[in-house]
């Protein structure tokens, strides 16, 4: 029997592919005349305080070795390869790059009143679930270098809902200075089932739930009638009929043989896009905040047992933490919600993350509807603030190591990429940041960043503006000549 490996599409690229990518990067960088960013095959970062990002506490005097775009070793007593470029990190901290747990990074240059620069939602478009953010990601949007320069190396990128509870399919991207940003395309579908879901469903949660069920029904129907394209509906001899739909754009789903009943609300493309969700081949990220909404999602997970659910937001999660933990559904939480900003967030508290974690919920940190196009670098501030709670009577904080993990390995894990990303364990993609100090302190700055083992430029439009106006004394030419 053929057992398809889950998420094969997103499996680790081969070494040659990595080299090829690195080559592309080097070319791009050379063209951009950026300083000293040649690809080093082997790099050893020595003497720094090394935090692996897997929940463990930081290790003083550690070494991190990068070889061919991967972590070759990290910790104490790691030998420095003879051919390595050595980076002295004494007095500094070394961590995996931050993985923005929920963002709209790369989708928006300027958010408001700047026609043509925002691609996070299609308010007047005909499609919903079929939308795939990947073609809209612009690696040259200024938000990418600004976040890269502050230690963010990967991001989970979701579309925004427009006219349907299903927003579309999100990607995982890297923030490298190259034109190849996609780490995992169509990694997940994003759906709103709380207040925002109710609003887009016509005004009630009840309506959102019916729409949700109907969408899965339409996907199931399409899946059932979909047959291999070749052979005009009958399986070709020797070719096993494969009921597994990996790509929603497969012509099996959209071709003439994929029959649908008359009773449909979704376009064919949108229904087809939900087939991999239904089959558990694509994650379903569900945004809910209120305790009762969280419980409803847990029930949906039991009813549609194939779904690979991740809950997003989850401000009131702590009030139902035991049920959440028992469900096994991981959470990308808004760490900083502590106000009853809406009636679905009445129980908001900074202790939410710690309490869910203590109950056994897998928690990552994201910035849901919180400067999600651009200020992802503030996730580390939020993580530090979670650590701060350990000193506040009655509050539930998290340890330093856990807090860092919530920014690095946890977001990668909840989206099924923990094997590749998010920690300094051997074999992981070499996304590495050297910080001037403790990375959870906002007084620490980034000294160096590698993505897939490639040293990254840290210059941004902001640093160029800074340097232009650093000295306001009148010069012999206007400022426009200064760069």
């Amino acid at each position, binding site marked *: 029997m053929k057992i398809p490996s889950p998420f094969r599409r997103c499996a680790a690229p081969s070494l040659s592919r990595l080299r090829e990518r690195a080559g592309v990067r080097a070319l791009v960088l050379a063209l951009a005349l950026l300083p000293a960013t040649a690809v080093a095959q082997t790099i050893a970062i020595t003497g720094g305080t090394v935090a692996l990002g897997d929940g463990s506490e930081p290790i003083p005097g550690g070494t991190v070795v990068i070889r061919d775009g991967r972590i070759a070793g990290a910790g104490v007593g790691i030998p420095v390869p003879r051919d390595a470029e050595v980076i002295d990190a004494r007095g500094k901290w070394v961590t995996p790059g931050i993985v923005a747990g929920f963002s709209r990074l790369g989708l928006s240059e300027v958010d408001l*009143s700047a026609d043509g620069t925002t691609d996070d939602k299609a308010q007047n478009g005909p499609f919903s679930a079929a939308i795939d953010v990947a073609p809209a990601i612009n690696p040259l949007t200024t938000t990418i270098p600004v976040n890269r320069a502050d230690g963010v190396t990967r991001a989970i990128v979701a579309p925004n809902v427009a006219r349907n509870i299903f927003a579309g399919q999100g990607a995982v991207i890297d923030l490298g200075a190259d034109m190849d940003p996609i780490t995992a395309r169509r990694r997940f579908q994003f759906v709103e089932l709380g207040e925002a879901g109710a609003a887009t469903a016509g005004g009630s949660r009840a309506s959102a739930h019916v729409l949700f069920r109907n969408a899965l029904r339409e996907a199931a129907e399409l899946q059932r009638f979909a047959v291999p394209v070749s052979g005009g509906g009958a399986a070709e001899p020797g070719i096993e009929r494969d009921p597994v739909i990996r790509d929603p754009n497969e012509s099996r789903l959209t071709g003439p043989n994929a029959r649908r009943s008359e009773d449909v609300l979704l376009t064919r493309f949108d229904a087809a896009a939900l087939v991999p969700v239904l089959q558990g081949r694509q994650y379903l990220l569900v945004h809910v905040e209120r305790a009762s909404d969280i419980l409803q999602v847990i029930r949906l997970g039991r009813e549609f047992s194939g779904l690979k659910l991740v809950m997003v937001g989850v401000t009131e999660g702590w009030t139902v933490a035991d049920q959440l933990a028992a469900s096994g559904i991981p959470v990308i939480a808004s760490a900083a919600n502590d106000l009853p900003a809406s009636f679905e967030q009445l129980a908001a*508290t900074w202790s939410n993350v710690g309490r869910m974690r203590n109950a056994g919920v897998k928690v990552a940190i994201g910035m849901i509807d919180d400067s999600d196009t651009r200020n992802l670098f503030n996730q580390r*501030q939020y993580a530090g603030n979670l650590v701060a709670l350990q000193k506040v009577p009655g509050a539930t904080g998290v340890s330093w190591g856990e807090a860092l993990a919530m920014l690095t390995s946890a977001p990668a894990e909840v989206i099924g990429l923990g094997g590749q990303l998010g920690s300094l364990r051997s074999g992981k993609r070499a996304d590495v940041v050297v910080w001037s100090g403790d990375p959870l*302190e906002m*007084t620490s700055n980034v000294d160096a960043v590698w993505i897939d083992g490639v040293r990254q430029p840290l210059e941004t439009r*902001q640093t160029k503006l*800074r340097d232009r106006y650093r000295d306001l004394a009148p010069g012999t030419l206007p400022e426009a000549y200064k760069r």
Partner: protein
Amino acid sequence: MTRRGGAIALSAALLAGCAGGAPPKKAAAIPVNEDPYPSTYRAYPGTPTVIRGATIFDGEGAQIDNGTIVLADGVVQAVGGPETPVPAGAFVVDGQGKWVTPGIIDVHSHLGDYPSPGTESHSDGNEATAPARPDVWAEHSVWPHDPGFSRALANGGVTALQVLPGSANLFGGRSVTLKNVPARTVQGMKFPGAPYGLKMACGENPKRVYGNKGGPSTRMGNIATTRATWLKAQAYKRKWDKYERDGGEMPDRDLAMDTLRGVLAGKILIHNHCYRADEMAIMIDLGHEMGYKVGTFHHAVESYKIADLLAKEGICSAMWADWWGFKMESYDGIKENIPFVDKAGACAIVHSDDANGIQRLNQEAAKALADGRRAGYNVSDAYAWRWLSFNPAKALGIVDRTGSLKQGKMADVVLWNGNPFSTYTRPDHVWIDGALMYDAANPRMRPVSDFELGQPGEGDVK
């Protein structure tokens, strides 16, 4: 007050009537009540309190290690080293390993006007029905039960704040400065004697809001409407100045013009929402043209480009540490804006404009401090605290009463459980006018708004 004004009018009329054979004299001017919604705030009773052994930032730039501070009768009695004499019987707080600072003052908040929960029915911050509405007063929108006040206190160490109207309008209306002490009414929160502010706005927002509602639809339209409104105010002021000087028939009162006349008379301070350097320069000239002074530019994302001009004009900039790019006029934001403004000798303030940001202004200042140091501007932690209390107090016209830990000033004080520029630090105790308003160790000392009573999470640590 209104009643008293009436009595004066009556006696003036009687006096005029008794003047006998002299030519009929004009009736003396009836004074206008300039404080019709007076503060009813009274400091809560405090216990004489001594904090010992803490690191003290006095708010004006000085740091005292192993410091002692004495609070009694609502004011700072003494600040000094371990030798500072303390009153017998005072409540003593051990400040070892902790930091003492003046309470944070946020010059830019919409708490109460855009409260939580943010339902449409609570949206009271922009009177977006005409571009010039200096007649509206932010205090008339403040919902004192906004849970945001208590978060700003307990998590942010905020002891005073200015609530401003929004920036949809060129003239947004009057602001109000509040003590961050819960009350049943906004009057119960008003900072006694704090001058009013006038919120003005330039740039994108007014033209976006009014572009399809009769204008202005351009920046030049913004400026034209602003100038025309000031010209009216000048005429109004002439009329009223004459009346107050000479008496006679009382001119019609106009609430909008009352506010602008207050500005022209120097009684009301200007808080001008403005992002771009070029627009700030125009607003500075406009102030000169019309006879008023810009007190503070708010948001001021490009202040770093004209920090020398701002220093020369004595104008404060209230800024974020790292917000940028959410609209075109914030596109050139840099992380060194705050320190670069300070470096030029201009008045730098860290502000929030946000119910979440107000809870961590100390950390926002920490970012600015670190980015400034990285860019070569080395100032001490204690000095940087000026951006959080002294400079904002100056911008609000209350620096003679609060904003630093000087003898005789209001005892608006935060004891932090670590260095307040660390993400690992939170307030331990907060005093306002010497009264303990928050104690992290005591669940009874966590304010719970009416709205939160009987709701999930009531009284929880937030």
